[in-house]
């Protein structure tokens, strides 16, 4: 009986590890290719362990045409967008969760509807709007579209969280002569740190990886963000895989570090969305 039990556990782990290997191996392969200096000469059969590993591709990618600028652009756009979207979404979510005002239901239902509509539906008028407002080739323009695009989802998520907070404290603040802004700053925000962290991380990842709007709105090579830069890089050096993957890894690694170090917030955010449905 005991032998059977541990055999079962062994098989269980083997299957789970097998699944994990299949999901992770492509990245291992990417790292290995990025360490091959002459990766455009494809070795056959493909070898996982490079013969003479070298970091030259990383150095070349980092020093090549504007790459550091792209990194800075991405960091700027993603950080500012996160700050704005978290602030504005939290404010809206608080009003939807706690306050009564005319138009509340209509606006909230429009948010739910927009959540279902693909982001790309408005891309043609967005492009024309950006052109008219002089926001093309502007990182601030990108930020405005990013923030607006993610307000519906984040407002929806935060509203769900704010509704679970106890309301007795609010009444106490109002009786003490505070107003709704006091409640928001002194009570709602401090109590919601985990939810705000979740929303911030998810948004940051989304902005860091955003490709479609950045591709459409930005022509000026100096204002590209990393995803567009990597795709362009791939277009120019299609056969120099090691170089392309080194550049990709420089973009991907910060995201992985953020994810692994803050993963409890990820799971919380994902599942709160799931159970509210």
């Amino acid at each position, binding site marked *: 009986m005991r032998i059977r039990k541990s055999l079962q556990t062994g098989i269980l782990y083997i299957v789970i590890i097998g699944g994990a290997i*299949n999901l992770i191996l492509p990245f291992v392969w990417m790292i290995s290719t990025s360490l091959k200096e002459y990766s455009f000469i494809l070795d056959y*059969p493909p070898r996982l362990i490079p013969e003479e590993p070298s970091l030259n591709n990383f150095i070349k990618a980092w020093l090549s045409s504007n790459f550091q600028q792209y990194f800075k652009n991405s960091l700027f756009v993603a950080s500012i967008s996160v700050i704005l979207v978290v602030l504005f979404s939290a404010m809206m979510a608080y009003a939807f969760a706690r306050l009564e005002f005319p138009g509340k239901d209509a606006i909230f239902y429009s948010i739910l509807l927009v959540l279902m509509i693909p982001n790309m539906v408005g891309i043609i008028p967005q492009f024309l709007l950006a052109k008219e407002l002089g926001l093309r080739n502007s990182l601030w323009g990108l930020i405005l579209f990013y923030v607006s*695009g993610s307000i519906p989802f984040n407002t929806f998520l935060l509203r769900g969280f704010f509704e679970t907070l106890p309301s007795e404290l609010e009444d106490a603040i109002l009786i003490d002569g505070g107003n709704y802004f006091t409640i928001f700053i002194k009570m709602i925000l401090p109590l919601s740190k985990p939810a705000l962290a979740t929303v911030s991380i998810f948004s940051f990842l989304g902005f860091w990886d955003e490709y479609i709007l950045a591709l459409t709105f930005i022509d000026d090579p100096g204002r590209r963000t990393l995803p567009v830069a*990597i795709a362009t890089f791939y277009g120019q050096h299609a056969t120099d895989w090691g170089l392309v*993957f080194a550049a990709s890894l420089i973009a991907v690694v910060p995201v992985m570090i953020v994810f692994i170090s803050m993963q409890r917030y990820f799971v919380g955010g994902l599942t709160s969305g799931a159970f509210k449905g």
Partner: protein
Amino acid sequence: MIFPSVRLSRRSQQVISAWVFILPGLLLYVIFLIYPIIKALQMSFYEWSVMPGDPNEFIGLVNYSRALRDPIVAVSMRNTVLYTIITVPGQMILAFFFAFLVDKVARGKIFFRTLYYIPVITSWVVVSILFRYFFQSPKGLINHILLDILHVIQQPIAWFREPATAFIPILVLGIWKGIGWSMVIFLAALQTIPKEFYDAAAIDGATAWRKLISITLPLIRPTLVFTLVMLMIGGFNVFISVVLITNGGPAQSTEVILSYMYHQAFDYIDFGYGAALAFIVAIIIVTVSYLQIRFLRRPEEIS
């Protein structure tokens, strides 16, 4: 008090505060998101002129009827539906399988969950390029595995040269990248099921299969429906992987509806037609999501 000089009733103070709270977000939301969506609907009824200032010609439903007759729209629609009906069950079944197993292990749950989730957080641009690399011909990794390790093919497959095979890398990528997302959600749902239910079933002599069918699946049903709706929406939104892996080729055979829309709008500068295509996608997604929520959820779950 926001207006200390005027004594406002509690009620009007609340209304004014509420509007101050929603105003900044609402303005951005209306100008940069709602207005473009409505404008896209309007544009879809026009022959939109390329030159700014030129008059746009109202043509009613012509863009829509053109879409119905456009053979590439038919191809794109077929590919989009194919992508959805293959990758959605593919992700859900594999994700459930692994979530079910990981839920059973005593140690390493969080570790495995982290590993499985890594493809989800990686940029679509990067993994699309990576899959393009794996499916190269003749010397790519996939050809090597199929040819020399599994011996299932006689000669390397030129994946991107044939319409029949060019879409396969996109499908594989869609499943591979999405497993972790559903898996994390399923795992959390499985952990909410009280162990006593299984113990009670075991006393009644229920088999593992019976427990799965009669306890596990019914109890996580709302989660399954949620995941299904979200993945279907995601499936219809497939775009980046297509653009970077095949860019719709060869000969537009792997075009999906959003990539075709994008090409019409920004390569052929046919804004009115592009807007109509975008709206067709939106209508399909909203309808399908609504029907799923309406019919797959039990009445008590709709709130």
